[in-house]
């Protein structure tokens, strides 16, 4: 009975400590003005993506040839494109695609990368060598070329773009996770857990992963911006998401042909990409500063 009481109080203490740690990180994050600006920009983007149906004044794919290439006006805030579609509405809907690509591609690569990195770091030996050489191979190919080759093989479209970006980002997570694991697996709390009979999977998920989350979260936040840029880049050269889907890179690509007469076709999608990437980078930097133990005091 006494033992159960002790365990309960120790777990309470643990949860209090965990809560206070999260609170401390949040407090440091809130004190960072740039990070707060980034968060507000991201919230605005999420709001636009969720409520695009309500906010958008026009259907993003509805053509209106009579009103094609119209400059910004009160009727069309960002003007219209070569088929008379409202650019503001297309940008609002485009935020859904960009955020989806960013989140899913980063989610996919972080899960696969962390799993591989954990296996490589925890078991070492031949398995470590094989996994790390595979990451070397992936890192030797410029990511844009790898992405394009994968999309060429799988076909264009949202799903394949996310897979391509996900695959090319795996090595970064794999390396971070492996590096964390190599230093953490020698720690006493891991030995204690092993001595208590915990399985390898339990140790990795419950003890090592929570302790290596900080660099992974920072990497993931920064990579979302990178994924949005990669998606736009692929669509720009016609090997990503293809029209009429309102994707920012594809919109920029079609705007190229009207650069001289209707520069608004390229200006607004470009600004939208920059806005999204800028928001994610500000957030990523803010999180890095908040999670960096060196800056605690």
């Amino acid at each position, binding site marked *: 009975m006494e033992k159960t009481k002790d365990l309960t109080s120790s777990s309470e203490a643990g949860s209090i400590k965990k809560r206070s740690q999260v609170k401390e990180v949040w407090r440091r994050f809130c004190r960072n003005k740039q990070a707060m600006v980034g968060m507000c920009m991201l919230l605005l983007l999420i709001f636009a993506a969720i409520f695009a149906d309500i906010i958008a004044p026009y259907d993003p794919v509805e053509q209106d040839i009579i009103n094609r290439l119209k400059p910004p006006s009160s009727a069309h805030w960002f003007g219209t494109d070569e088929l008379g579609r409202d650019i503001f509405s297309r940008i609002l809907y485009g935020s859904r695609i960009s955020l989806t690509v960013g989140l899913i591609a980063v989610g996919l690569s972080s899960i696969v990368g962390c799993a591989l990195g954990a296996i490589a770091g925890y078991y070492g030996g031949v398995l470590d060598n094989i996994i790390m*050489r*595979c990451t*070397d*191979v*992936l890192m*030797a*190919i*410029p*990511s*844009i*070329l790898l992405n*394009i*080759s*994968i999309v*060429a*093989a799988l*076909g264009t479209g949202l799903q394949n773009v996310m897979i391509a970006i996900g695959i090319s980002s795996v090595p970064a997570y794999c390396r971070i996770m492996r590096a964390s694991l190599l230093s953490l697996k020698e720690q006493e709390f891991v030995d204690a857990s092993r001595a208590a009979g915990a399985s390898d999977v339990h140790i990795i998920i419950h003890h090592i992963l929570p302790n290596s989350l900080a660099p992974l979260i920072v990497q993931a936040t920064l990579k979302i*911006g990178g994924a949005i*840029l990669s998606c*736009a*880049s692929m669509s*720009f*050269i*016609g*090997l990503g998401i293809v029209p009429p889907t309102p994707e920012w*890179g594809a919109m*920029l690509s079609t*705007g*190229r042909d009207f*650069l*001289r007469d209707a*520069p608004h076709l*390229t*200006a607004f*999608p*470009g600004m939208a*990409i*920059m806005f999204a*990437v*800028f928001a994610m*980078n*500000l957030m990523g*930097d803010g999180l890095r500063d908040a999670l960096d133990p060196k800056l605690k005091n």
Partner: protein
Amino acid sequence: MLKYIGRRLLMMIPVMLGVILIVFTLMYITPGDPVDTLLGDDATPEMAEQLREELGLNGTYIERLGKYLVNLAHGDLGICYSTKQPVMDRIIQTFPNSLKLAGCSVLLSVAIGLTLGIVSAVKQYSLFDNIAMTLAMIGNAMPNFWQGLLLMLLFALHWKILPASGFDGWTYMILPAITIGTSSAAAVARMTRSSMLEVIRQDYITTAEAKGQTELKIIIFHALKNALIPVITTIGIQFGHLLGGAVLTESIFAVPGVGKMMVDAIKARNYPVVQGGVLMVALTFSLVNLAVDILYAFVDPRIRSQYK
């Protein structure tokens, strides 16, 4: 040092084999037949079959991979489907253009990035620091291809002072080099600032100040030299990527470089060019990484002693 270089070069062999395997497999599973693209709609099945045989497109995956590796061992990267030239010749034609563009861009990024980074670190939290770092963050977030289009709109279409596309002389290099160079400069500036900030708090900087050294001398000979390692890594990675990865900028400004060649080849299902191109880009990238590691030894005597 030579032993280290030799070991690194040997380690590149399995990496390059892995690159070949990945690119070959991706091209193998890519849907569509290059023969259809080359012959058009008027081709008879016999003509298609004959061309397929000539191009070595018949056979199983293992047979084709084996044949490719044997040819590669003899220095043969295959024949370009569209120009009928050896792939190596096409790479030799395009690589110098990418090299020139990458060189100019990196020079520009180092000139801007190092200056901004150093001044920002020395004048931390000043107005200059805030403006420079905000500009660097904007530069990091700005898509290269958008920046390229804006520059083209202003300098080539509006003011008509620079050519919009092509590669007939040094003036043609200005806009693509600014496009790549300024966004790379953003990364170099941020890395230089953070690296310099770590160094200028060290005791040896205080000692140098106490000895009465001038600020410029302290920055250049004491701080910058010790802050250079991460900056060299950033510059090296960017240079390596630019030698084959400046795909978008090369496409926008019609620079006949390796990146543009490969995108065109991927779209046309010109498999030998894609395979050969990616292999050469990966090899160059690995060699640049090796050169960066060797450069560390010249900057840091502690690393030099490890190589011995």
